[in-house]
């Protein structure tokens, strides 16, 4: 495998390292990721760091390199200043576009990210009398809000029974800067507003991996941006001083750097499933056993004796859990589609082993 960092000769190597090797073959994907990152702005959406690939690995591997991810997407806002938005004739659900970058696996499943997003709406200047009656005045009102957020969060993998990564749920929190402007025709000096303020947010999301380098993400973020509104305009009438609110979004995440091959993350989960194939629970499990990947079609035997009839032929890429190494043989646990989890022996030369 060209460029593989698969060290660990003799010893059980970290599959993460193997993923580095994969990275080198993925330069078109990285280029695409960059492109999407640039042109698909989005709020914090999808991401996963290679690292966490194997839950077992998360944060455990001192030499593990953090993964870099870019993401982008769009979301719908539910502004907290609902009445003000409605009164000003602004769309009740501003659509926000944005994107960002994330460093994942800083420590264990910890990630840090910077994101930028923006929405704009055109409403109508209005007058609200003391009874709350609204009188639209037919004068356009252009409102724009841009956010730059810095977040810290935690993201773990959830695996399927077959050992594949099913989901990457994550949560986080952080601070940011809100840049807010509103403008209308016929303004005098000081009539329009262009200001900025600190904002605070919490976020949660879920990534669904599509490929090794690509995931779809849904996320929700609640942002609180005090003191932007409320000093004047209709927001003062309704006593709404915060610009934030809830945002739900959908986006894409592209990962590169670190380790990010879902396939290589799978091995760990194959082993831990102690249940038979039929009737087993679908609850994902997290395991921390050494794993290996079968490099080419290879037989697996009941005993370390190649003269015996193989229990099964394992295909390249099959993930096995390495239980024991005995000379040229490895005792492994593997998944038999017919019989479920089984034990057997496979020649060492057919398997690349991680920890």
């Amino acid at each position, binding site marked *: 495998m060209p460029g593989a960092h698969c060290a660990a000769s003799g010893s059980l190597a970290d599959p993460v390292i193997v993923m580095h090797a994969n990275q080198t073959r993925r330069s078109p994907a990285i280029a695409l990721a960059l492109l999407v990152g640039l042109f698909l702005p989005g709020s914090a959406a999808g991401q996963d760091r290679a690292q966490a690939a194997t839950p077992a690995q998360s944060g455990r591997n001192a030499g593990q390199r953090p993964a870099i991810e870019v993401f982008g997407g769009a979301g719908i806002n539910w502004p907290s200043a609902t009445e003000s938005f409605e009164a000003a004739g602004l769309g009740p659900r501003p659509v926000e576009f944005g994107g960002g970058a994330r460093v994942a696996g800083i420590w264990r499943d910890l990630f840090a990210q910077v994101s930028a997003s923006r929405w704009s709406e055109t409403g109508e200047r209005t007058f609200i*009398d003391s009874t709350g009656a609204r009188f639209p005045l037919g004068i356009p009102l252009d409102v724009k809000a841009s956010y730059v957020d810095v977040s810290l969060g935690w993201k773990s993998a959830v695996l399927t029974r077959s050992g594949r990564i099913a989901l990457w749920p994550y949560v986080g929190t952080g601070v940011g800067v809100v840049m807010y402007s509103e403008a209308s025709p016929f303004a005098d000096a000081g009539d329009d507003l262009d200001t900025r303020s600190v904002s605070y947010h919490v976020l949660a999301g879920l990534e669904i991996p599509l490929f090794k380098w690509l995931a779809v993400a849904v996320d929700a973020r609640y942002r609180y941006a005090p003191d932007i509104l409320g*000093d004047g305009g209709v927001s003062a009438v309704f006593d709404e001083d915060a610009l934030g609110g809830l945002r739900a979004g959908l986006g894409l995440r592209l990962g590169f750097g670190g380790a990010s091959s879902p396939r290589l993350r799978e091995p760990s989960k194959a082993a831990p499933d102690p249940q038979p194939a039929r009737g087993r629970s679908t609850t994902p499990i997290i395991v921390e056993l050494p794993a290996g990947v079968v490099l080419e079609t290879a037989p697996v035997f009941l005993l370390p004796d190649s003269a015996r009839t193989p229990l099964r032929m394992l295909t390249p890429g099959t993930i096995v859990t390495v239980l024991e190494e005995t000379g040229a043989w490895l005792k492994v646990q593997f998944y038999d589609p017919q019989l479920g989890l089984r034990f057997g022996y496979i020649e060492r030369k057919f398997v690349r082993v991680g920890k």
Partner: protein
Amino acid sequence: MYLRLVGLFAVVTAAALVGSAQEPQPTARPFAYKQRTHDVPTPGFLGGLRREPAPHITFDTTGVTLSLPDVWDVDPGTGAQYRRGEVLVRFRDDVDAIGRARTLQSVRGRRMVRVLPANWSLMELQPEVSPLQSVSVLQAMPEVEEASPNFRLRTQQFRPNDEFHHLQWNFEAINLPVAWQINPGARDDVVVAVVDTGLNAVTDTFVFFSPLVGQIPVRFAEVPDLVSDGRIVSPYDFVYDDEFPVDLDGHGTHVAGTIAQQTDNGIGLAGVAFNVKLMPLKVITGGWDDVFNPSHRGGAVDVVSAAVRHAADNGAKVINLSLGGLGAAPTLRDAISYAVSRGAFVAIAAGNSFEDGNPVEYPAAYGEQINGAMTVGAVNRSSRRASYSAVHPYVEICAPGGDAFDFERGITQVGYEEASTRSLWTFPEQALALTLGFRPRFDRFEPLPLSGTSMATPHVAGVAALLYSQGIRNPSAIEEAITRFARPIDATADQCGAGLVDARRALRGLGLAR
């Protein structure tokens, strides 16, 4: 003594007879105080309000009169101004200097004045060549991509071209030019009632009955630049009880002019809400009314109240009350409340008696009690309370009222030519003049500077009409908008309430955060 009186009576009678003999003698109802004759003697004449020709540079032996050079022509199709003798041409990329010269020659151009970016050139034409025609020719030429006259651009601030608009400092004071950009003069579905001394909505002769000299024909003319076809709605004369509320004073005409003078038509003056319809309701009398009809009921609370209700019942959405008195008028208060309940905003003059003891006046005192009615004080050109403007807690807003009867400091609007009406004369003077043969005529107009809270009030009424037209159709909301967006000035709340009315701010309303 008796001989003197007899002599005076003889002279007066003789003069009256002579004067009467000179006038047409319409058939009048016996003992009717006022009758329309349908004798149309003169069109309305706006003295001094003629459009002057464009200024030119003139030289003569007495010296040089230098005015701005007139270098603009007008496109008759659009009214757009363009630079005389110039066109802008955009050549195609492959046209070389020879091709450009040929093009210049083909439209009798003199020279290329300037080469502009993007293949544009400014071409100067022979003086006799029309730029509009040249553009047509150029556009048909293969060398030319585009061509256009060198049109004139202006700032987007609406500045009426009325001849005497420059005298109307009061409109700048309430930010009206920018407000007109937002809402150019309201819409014609807004009716503003002017409950006042009347307004000449017809050009005709009316015969009045004078106890002194009998029937007297008096000439009236439509107020030029103010009254036009279809603009007058449900007029009524509550003094003479007819539908011709002719103005024998000029006050109502002036007030109506401030509200609705036709604007940007090159003549006369401008008005705040120049597209509205007017409902002139005559309830107050002038000196000549007293001469012609000494027993009239003009100014009585019941008459004014009836007019206010008439306005509300006939669709007025704004009512201007530039009137007041010292006696409490609960009947009028109820009428105002009724009008507000029917959706009409009411502007009321605060009163001019600050220097005469600052008494409480009515209906001014009711403005504060009724949401949808506002009591209006006056400021001078410096945006300070005018010296006469009443100071009371019920003053809710201020507007320009001026503080002198001159063009510099007064509120200039259309009024009667004083020499024709002698409206400033006292009752005895007018009566004597009448017996001596003087016949007032109310068909000659001129720009007239007046001052008072009466002049301030129509500014607020006009802004209310703009707001109504902009979409604020609730009287109390209009009051709130005017109050909220008033400009603070150097005055206490008793002097000017919320401050000086600001039409631009009120019309612009609220944004999300500003």
